[in-house]
């Protein structure tokens, strides 16, 4: 990904929009008694499109902003989401798998990873609670949501960052090339 000031502005806008949507919409709707968490999927999409650095930095930013707005101890969300973004970027850099299922599957797996990470941070911070089956059910359903929401999020982010993407194929020509002498 070629990060120009314009692309940087878009990245900031994507991060802000994602956090706002999460707090104002996704966190306040319940489907099967669970609220979807789209932020890991967003970070995964950014990591898949931009690589480890983009994933890690945007993950850190999203986590930082989230912690600020939720008045939670700073750093917890950042640590989890930067790891998530980094892993997504690492996948892009290490594996040459080009399938439409990569984005949703990775969103699902890494959302589960992120939710486990959030739980681990909470336990690390001394929240004294037992891990009930409800928490595990919540995590699993969130990761299933991420599978279904991952693809549109990935496509949306890809569209927004299209000018910066190196591997984006050239725009299809509207007219066939003129062959001289034909």
């Amino acid at each position, binding site marked *: 990904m070629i990060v120009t000031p314009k692309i940087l502005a878009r990245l900031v806008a994507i991060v802000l929009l994602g956090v*706002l*949507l999460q*707090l*104002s*919409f996704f966190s*306040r*709707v*319940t*489907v*099967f*008694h669970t609220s979807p968490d789209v932020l890991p999927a967003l970070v995964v999409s950014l990591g898949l499109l931009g690589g*480890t*650095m983009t994933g*890690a*930095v945007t993950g*850190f930013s999203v*986590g*930082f*902003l989230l*912690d*600020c*707005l939720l*008045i939670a*101890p*700073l*750093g*917890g969300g*950042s*640590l989890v989401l*930067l790891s998530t973004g*980094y892993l997504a970027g690492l996948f892009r850099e290490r594996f040459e798998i080009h399938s439409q299922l990569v984005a949703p599957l990775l969103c699902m797996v890494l959302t589960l990873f992120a939710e486990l990470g959030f739980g681990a941070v909470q336990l690390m*911070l001394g929240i004294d609670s037992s891990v009930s089956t409800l928490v595990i059910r919540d995590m699993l359903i969130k990761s299933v949501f991420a599978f279904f929401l991952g693809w549109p999020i990935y496509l949306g982010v890809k569209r927004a960052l299209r000018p910066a993407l190196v591997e984006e194929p050239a725009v299809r020509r509207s007219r066939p090339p003129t062959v001289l002498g034909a």
Partner: protein
Amino acid sequence: MYRKQVRRRRAVLALLVVGSFVLLTVTYGRGSNSVQRGVSTIFSPVQSVANRALKPARDLVNWFDSTFDARGRNGRLHTELEAARKQSVGAQTALAENAQLRKLLALDRGGAIPSGYKPVTGEVIGRSPTVWFSDVTIDVGSGSGVSVNNPVVNGDGLVGTVSAVIGGSATVTLIADGSSAVSAKVVPLGVQGVIRPAVGDPGSLILDFIDSAKHVHRGQAVVTAGWRAQGLSSRFPPNIPIGEVTHASIEEQEAQQQVEVRPFADLRNLELVQVLTGGSR
């Protein structure tokens, strides 16, 4: 060039990780800090607008979720209701059965069943389909010691006599049957007569052939007479409650020598009965 790039990436990553841990260490347990307050102040108006703008979409999603949830809950509650209803019916049946058994026990302990008789408890498993309800089938038979002409009672009083027996069941002819006749007496007067069914009224009996010199009054109880004379005896032991006098006009008693009696036992709704086997007949 590539190595330099890798080193820079690693450095940034390490910086971010270390930064996260530093932030955690610094801010943990100290409540909100100035950074959080500042960010919240900036974002509050935007969040407020987003909140209002997204409310219809939120409500829509939540409505779908609530509807699906309500449907699931409805089904679950229906199942629970069905189970509870079954339990309730079972409990009511058990209560009714318990009440009948208590009555039978009370009849037994109250001395109404004379010594020498061995009560065998049975359940009504079949009824006569006619309007007269003149006989019922019970689930005890000769295998339990039941034999023809054994008196049959329930917790309220006399029910009838056994008219046919096979191994595991017996037919009981009720005292409301047209062929039934039970020698009875009115207590405490001791006026004797014969209990017969009232023609055309299966819920009522007639105490016939009474002594017209002694006047029977409404509300007085009628019990089995249980006579014994010259080697012959009644099928029924004495003093088993039959019913109470419901209509006893002096004119009827003097002209027809009869009074109307309502049986204590509800002959239309018999569930548990006792066959008085053995005895001194």
